[in-house]
């Protein structure tokens, strides 16, 4: 019998053609290692902590009967709302993320603008200088600031030597140190999308505005800024979303009074070993971030196509 005569159902044939096989390799990988874990987090956030390994109760309990009973509890979520620490931590993360996004935007825009308007032969090397810190370890770049900002650190040493101050400034372990750390670490993420946008801007529009008698500053506000809005949005998303859950910077540069939800989650997991509460913290953070993440995805898809 010829092998071709065997009737294969059409839906199976469609499912197993080469095209779908190629799509399914990265697709299944991400489904299994990126999406599926969130379902587990949701499941564990509904469990209760126990002293065991793993330290949480099973959602399904197999008793005498043929079907399992579901033992979901909202205790972890109720706990988050009953203790003001968690609400404060979310709000404080939001505040820090918003302020540092604005600061990063102002500084990043000036640098991106200056690189994009630099003489053509300089642009490559300047862009390279922006990208280089982005490749350097995050941890190392945050660590570098400890030696500078410490009370007996290099900044205070320099300022007292010059004579600007006579008492050392207390910056380390304050929110100010956290802002410095965030702006410093996330600056390349802001500059790159802004530069990509500003560099391909049609200069004839700016010339037209100048020819018609518009002052440079007004041209900047009414032409350059609105045209660079996609770059501004992309940069702000790239900074705001990860900063909301930032752990390393508040942990190393911030003080005990610096509340950020990433630090709280870390503490619940590693120090308190309360996995259900850590999961609930993650689920709520995810719920806050899901809308910005979707906006970011839309803006990126538009930028590439």
């Amino acid at each position, binding site marked *: 019998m010829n092998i071709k005569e065997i009737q294969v159902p059409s839906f199976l044939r469609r499912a197993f053609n*080469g095209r779908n096989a*190629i*799509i399914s390799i*990265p*697709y299944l*990988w*991400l489904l299994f*290692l*990126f*999406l*599926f*874990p969130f379902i*587990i*987090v949701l*499941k564990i956030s509904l469990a209760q902590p126990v002293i065991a390994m793993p330290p949480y109760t099973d959602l399904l309990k197999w008793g005498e009967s043929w079907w399992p009973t579901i033992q979901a509890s909202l205790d972890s979520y109720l706990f988050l709302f009953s203790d003001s620490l968690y609400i404060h931590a979310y709000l404080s993360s939001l505040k820090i993320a918003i302020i540092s996004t604005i600061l990063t935007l102002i500084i990043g825009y*000036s*640098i991106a*603008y*200056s690189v994009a*308007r*630099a*003489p*053509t032969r300089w642009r490559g090397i*300047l862009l*390279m*200088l*922006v990208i280089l*810190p982005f*490749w*350097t*370890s*995050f*941890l*190392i770049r945050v*660590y*570098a600031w400890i*030696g*500078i900002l*410490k009370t007996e650190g*290099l900044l205070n040493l320099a300022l007292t030597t010059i004579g600007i101050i006579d008492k050392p400034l207390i910056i380390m372990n304050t929110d100010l140190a956290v802002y410095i750390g965030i702006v*410093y670490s996330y600056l390349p993420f802001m500059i790159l999308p802004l530069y990509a946008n500003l560099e391909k801007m049609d200069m004839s529009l700016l010339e037209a505005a100048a020819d018609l008698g518009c002052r440079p500053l007004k041209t900047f506000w009414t032409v350059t800024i609105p045209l660079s809005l996609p770059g501004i949005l992309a940069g702000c*998303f*790239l900074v705001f*979303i*990860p900063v*909301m*859950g*930032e*752990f390393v910077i508040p942990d190393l540069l911030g003080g005990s009074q610096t509340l950020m939800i*990433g630090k709280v989650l870390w503490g619940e*997991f590693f120090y308190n070993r309360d996995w259900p509460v850590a*999961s609930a913290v*993650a689920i709520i953070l*995810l719920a806050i*971030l899901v809308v910005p*993440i979707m906006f970011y*995805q839309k803006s*990126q*898809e538009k930028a590439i*196509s």
Partner: protein
Amino acid sequence: MKKFGNFNIAALVIGFSFLYIPIILLILFSFNESRLVTVWGGFSTKWYGELMHNQGIKDAAWVTIKVAFISSTVATLLGTIAGIVMTRFGNFRGRTLFSGMIYAPMVMPEVIIGLSTLLMFVSLAIDRGVLTVTLAHITFSMCYVAVIIQSRMSSYDDSITEAALDLGCTPFRTFMLITFPIILPAIVSGWLLAFTLSLDDLVIASFTSGPGSTTLPIKIYSMVRLGVTPEINAVSTILVGLVTVGVVTASLIGKRQKQQLAQS
């Protein structure tokens, strides 16, 4: 623009000082004779010598290189396929979810990714170790590779591959002879980025590693928590140096290739 404006020069000087002074000071003080970070005690390379005797750091470095090499290689393979699927496969079912899973890990806070990946490994009773760190690193770095490949794929003319297919070339041969050489620079930079992302990651590795799979960032982090020491400066300087050499070489290769393409 032929010349720099005054504002532009000021912004660039201040901006780049802000970006580079901390790193330069970090490197400078790794050559400090004195143990105190703020007191210059003369030039010395003794902290580098001491690193060579620190077995903990050497073990961690070896684990990190192993994880980074394997994860970046697999991530490049998966990410390249994902980038091609995103640009050349039209509107397949579940495309929105797919692109969501590509873009989300790049902005998602690391604590969420780390926690969720770990909880999945625990619920499947997979022991934490080199394998779990590697799998977690592949997952987030393949997304960066996919985006790099995607932007390269969408910026070149698809009609040459169509011509090859019309003239009877098989899809596989078309890929090897036309698409692959065109996107090769993007594949190389994707691999490099995946490698450094894995080399740098602290948060996700902290969640997914177990005893015996301590990576270099985890080791450095535990040292930093105890205070600033010249040894940390020394190991940081080595890492910064390696990354700089890698990135500069890669960009020079890319530039040369562009020039060759322009000449031919």
